[in-house]
């Protein structure tokens, strides 16, 4: 009986503690972070985009990616939905929306608090002060947790390489940006659907466009708050879900999603030794008491037997 009670108490204690600690979702801090000041971004205005795919061509040239299976001026590829691949950092898709055919360019959104950077266990991703989220292939182990983490399903992997597979994704042309140049896609866009500048300014510009043309735009700048905010911002004439963009991602940045769980680690390290040695000590004490009680009982029984013997003899 005493054993099950001890075990019961032990498990309740451990379970209660782990439940209480495991349930905390909030970050171990209540600080608010604004991001790097003067961080850059790109504003994509889907109302202006004509789906010409010139941006894909420029991206391919600037990043020295392999030649495509079908040429960039082949617009029949728009008949199917495509996603980023190890050979294409960005793609344009056509969507048949309530306002007719629309086009959206997809690429890494260079989040303010990137899920890929949070997930990477070798810190292969860096959010630069210029705004680009860049990848360092020299430390990547290839675990692909970043691909699990990215809510926009952007990172791709070179599964066909046996020795040097890499994650491939848009770099916001960081090497060009630090030299004062524009990203390849922004520079080439014939309709200026892409606009590069400080994120603060982009949001102002986007809001201004919405204010000026309320019938043309949906009153929401996608990326302003999604997943804690992204550097690639979108304007749309139709609800974003009609362009295949998820409207249910919420505003919590990725690092906050796992910070609660990470906070449990030091709690367990600090408290489990105390809890477990405490249980061990109680167990040993309980055993000692049981031993002692047994000895007393035997003693008593022997004394009683001797007394009986003596009484019988008289």
């Amino acid at each position, binding site marked *: 009986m005493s054993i099950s009670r001890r075990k019961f108490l032990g498990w309740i204690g451990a379970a209660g503690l782990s439940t209480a600690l495991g349930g905390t979702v909030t970050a171990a801090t209540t600080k608010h972070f604004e991001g790097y000041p003067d961080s850059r971004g790109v504003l994509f205005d889907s109302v202006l985009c004509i789906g010409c795919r010139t941006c894909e061509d420029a991206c391919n040239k600037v990043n020295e990616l392999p030649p495509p299976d079908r040429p960039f001026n082949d617009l029949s590829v728009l008949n199917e939905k495509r996603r980023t691949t190890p050979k294409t950092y960005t793609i344009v898709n056509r969507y048949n929306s309530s306002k007719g055919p629309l086009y959206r360019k997809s690429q890494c959104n260079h989040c303010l608090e990137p899920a890929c950077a949070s997930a990477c266990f070798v810190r292969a991703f860096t959010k630069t002060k210029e705004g680009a989220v860049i990848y360092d292939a020299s*430390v990547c182990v290839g675990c692909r947790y970043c691909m699990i983490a990215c809510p926009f399903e952007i990172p791709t992997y070179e599964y066909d390489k*046996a020795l040097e*597979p890499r994650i491939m994704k848009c770099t916001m042309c960081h090497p060009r940006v630090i030299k004062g140049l524009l990203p390849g896609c922004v520079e080439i866009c014939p309709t200026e659907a892409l606009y590069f500048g400080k994120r603060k300014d982009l949001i102002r510009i986007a809001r201004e466009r919405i204010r000026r043309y309320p019938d043309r735009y949906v009153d929401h700048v996608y990326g302003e708050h999604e997943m804690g905010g992204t550097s690639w911002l979108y304007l749309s004439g139709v609800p974003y879900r009609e362009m295949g963009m998820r409207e249910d991602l919420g505003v919590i940045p990725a690092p906050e999603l796992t910070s609660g769980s990470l906070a449990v680690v030091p709690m367990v390290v600090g408290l489990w030794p105390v809890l*477990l040695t405490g249980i061990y000590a109680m167990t040993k004490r309980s055993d000692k008491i049981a031993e002692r009680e047994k000895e007393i009982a035997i003693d008593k029984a022997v004394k009683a037997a001797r007394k009986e013997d003596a009484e019988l003899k008289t």
Partner: protein
Amino acid sequence: MFEETTPGRKSFFSLFNICAGIIVVIGLYITYLRFTGGLEAVTNLSDYNPWGIWIGFDLLVGVALAAGGYVTSAAVYIFGMKRYHSAVRPAILTGFLGYALVVLALHYDVGRPWRLPYPFIMQQGTTSVLFEVAACVALYLTVLFIEFSSAPLEWLGLKRARNIVVKLTMVLTILGVILSTMHQSSLGALFLIAPSKLHPLWYSPFIPVYFFITSIIAGLSMVIFESTLSYRFFKHKMDEVHLQEKNDIALGFGKAASFVLAGYFIIKIFGLSSGNNWHYLKTDYGTWYLVELLGFVALPSFLYAIGVRVKSLNLIKWTSVLAILGIILNRFNVCLIAFNWHLPSSERYFPHWMEIGISVFIVTLGLIAFRFIVTRMPILYEHPDYKDAH
């Protein structure tokens, strides 16, 4: 699987050896393809599905089923349940082999396995739950190795080294529980970063607690299951103490598993209420969730309880299989089935036969190693030179 039990006369071409041999040859061939053709040559992984059964089964299920090590040694050394002492070495062996094979499987899955030490020696991604998993698994594998080493040291007659290892039992056991609590729960926490990809019935801030509690259930059930198999195939290796204690172990662990399953069931319900996810139960995924919760959590809890009450070892043994299948189902659900539930079926994942081939190959290596060790080293019996007082 049907070894001759007459000592000294063993046919090399037993059924098990032939099957294992074929599996090993196929496994080696797939290994060659994997490292010459890349992951694409042997898996159905894609950019939408970066993790397949090598993570879902070999890592997630493997680590859960190897939990018997910490659960059993905690029960015996921390909670003082000395009557289960004979279960410790088999559980530690299963744990050690389990974790060793998990690390082997990771060498197949990650893109550059020679870089697996990088998080420790190059750059530390300390914001990552995976960093914590990697650190804890590496440390715990070391702990398990040291705990296991007392058996081969006895076998080799290295008395002094063996005595040092045995003196470390308490420290290693406590460290083992600490490390196990952390990485068992963190394997679940991996998925916290992707709320948009995991079905709401499985995504919960309580995933880490769920994974930790189910690791206890898995450990308890695996000890019962593995004891059943050991009795079937290695009875001749078991000494008096083992044979005497094994029924009590099944009853005791069955009782514990029943209780923990019941507690787990309750906290799953609380998870539903916390997330206000009742309406999802009406959907197809909801039905599947109820299959997992009722058929593989509530039912084994109930069956274990009956088995303990009427002292039916047979029922307890079969229930342990059900409970283990439930753990496998849960890990598969979180990682593969309820994950990416929003994608069209054309983008969903199903393993390539070669992925299954490698997983079977790895399990087979484990069985071969288990058999080698158990037939030579004092796992199922006590070495006559080292009769420890209980």
